[in-house]
């Protein structure tokens, strides 16, 4: 998996590591933890190569485990340095667009001259679930307000333990299958009414 140059870099005692994050929405979100843009070339997911944007920073790559004995996990990616554009995506109608999308985390090693020594190694693939925004509350006017966006992702198994945030409404059904009109009239149902079924005869 690693080439000779990468093994040599790991032997050195100091490491230069680039993390990569890819979320398969439309358009595809490609981020990495450094500054500016990077073209990591062809790898297992980007078959023709692509540009990754140093997006502020992914503040915290959560620890994750391989799936062992079917124990599912859920991790959250938190992003600081959020631009207004991303906030708009996270807060408005586009937020459900991430649900069910493929989300991958990878890394690559860099040499002393900050050049990538090999392709990006994708070490974990998740299914994205939902986006959340958090904003710090401050009581001092001088303090800057900090916003972060959190993406919660899980594996295929996660969904069995925790239901996804979706309902049998027309909007949710249209997102799953755009032409399906199955739930079109669910808003007409009245809640809090109990239907009386005919009694079974004695």
């Amino acid at each position: 998996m690693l080439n000779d140059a990468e093994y040599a870099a790991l032997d050195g005692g100091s490491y230069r590591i680039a993390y990569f994050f890819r979320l398969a929405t439309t358009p595809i979100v490609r981020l990495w933890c450094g500054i500016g843009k990077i073209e990591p070339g062809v790898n297992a997911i980007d078959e023709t190569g692509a540009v990754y944007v140093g997006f502020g920073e992914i503040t915290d790559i959560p620890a994750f485990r391989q799936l062992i004995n079917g124990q599912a996990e859920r991790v959250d990616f938190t992003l600081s340095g959020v631009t207004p554009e991303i906030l708009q995506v996270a807060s408005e109608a586009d937020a459900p667009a991430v649900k069910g999308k493929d989300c991958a985390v990878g890394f690559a090693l860099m040499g002393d001259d900050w050049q990538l020594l090999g392709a990006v190694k994708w070490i974990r693939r998740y299914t994205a679930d939902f986006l959340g925004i958090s904003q710090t509350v401050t009581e001092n006017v001088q303090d800057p307000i900090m916003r972060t966006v959190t993406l919660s992702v899980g594996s295929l198994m996660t969904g069995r333990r925790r239901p996804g945030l979706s309902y049998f409404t027309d909007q949710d059904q249209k997102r799953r299958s755009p032409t399906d009109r199955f739930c079109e009239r669910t808003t007409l149902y009245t809640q809090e009414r109990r239907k009386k079924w005919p009694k079974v005869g004695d």
Partner: protein
Amino acid sequence: MSELIYVPASLLRYRSVEPELSARVIAPGLSGAGVIPKMSVDGGGLWTIAFGEIQLSTPAHRQAWRAINAMCDGGVNKLIIPFVDLPHQPWPIVSGKPLTSYDTIPHDDGSLFSDGSGYVQSVIDAEIVTSAALRSTSLRIRMNYSGGLMGGEHFSIEHPVMSHRMYRIGRVVERDDGDFDVVIRPPLREAVSGGEILDFDAPKSIFEPETPGGLNIGTDIIGMARPSPMLIEGFTSEMLA
């Protein structure tokens, strides 16, 4: 859409200045043998520049600063900051002294503009020889008119998308044909091609104040203002699109 605001170099009469590349290094602690292995995850660093006590001594200076502060909108609009570094740049030596600027340059018939000012031209003339890819750290440059390079100098390149970006020379090797092979930090923000101009006179980069109120000044009773802003390199959303 955000606007880029040029900050004139004459406004930045600082008492101290410190442009540095911030590095995010994760240290996992001391090992049993006393070694601290380090892991760098920032991919080359981000410029920060700390000005100490910029002297805004006249009303015109303070008004210009206030106007820039207003247009900056707390960092929404980015600033183009020139870093004029007279002692350390490779100025050409003319009759024993470094030549840091030309006098006012008139029109070709010898006349000046109606207010008595002339043209401005940079002194150090340098260009890129061979093109280099995005995130390269080694460049071959040609110094057409300058002093010698020693390492530790700064220059900037005006990229088509990323606009002005500053780089620092870390290692210099002079070639037999007079060109220089230099190693730079941070890695190139955008690919460059041969013939692109290097700005050694007043290296510029895009900055934004560290906090929204970072450019605020307080004027004291004798009419002096000495702000000490801390600026970090910024990118507009168009640059990262």
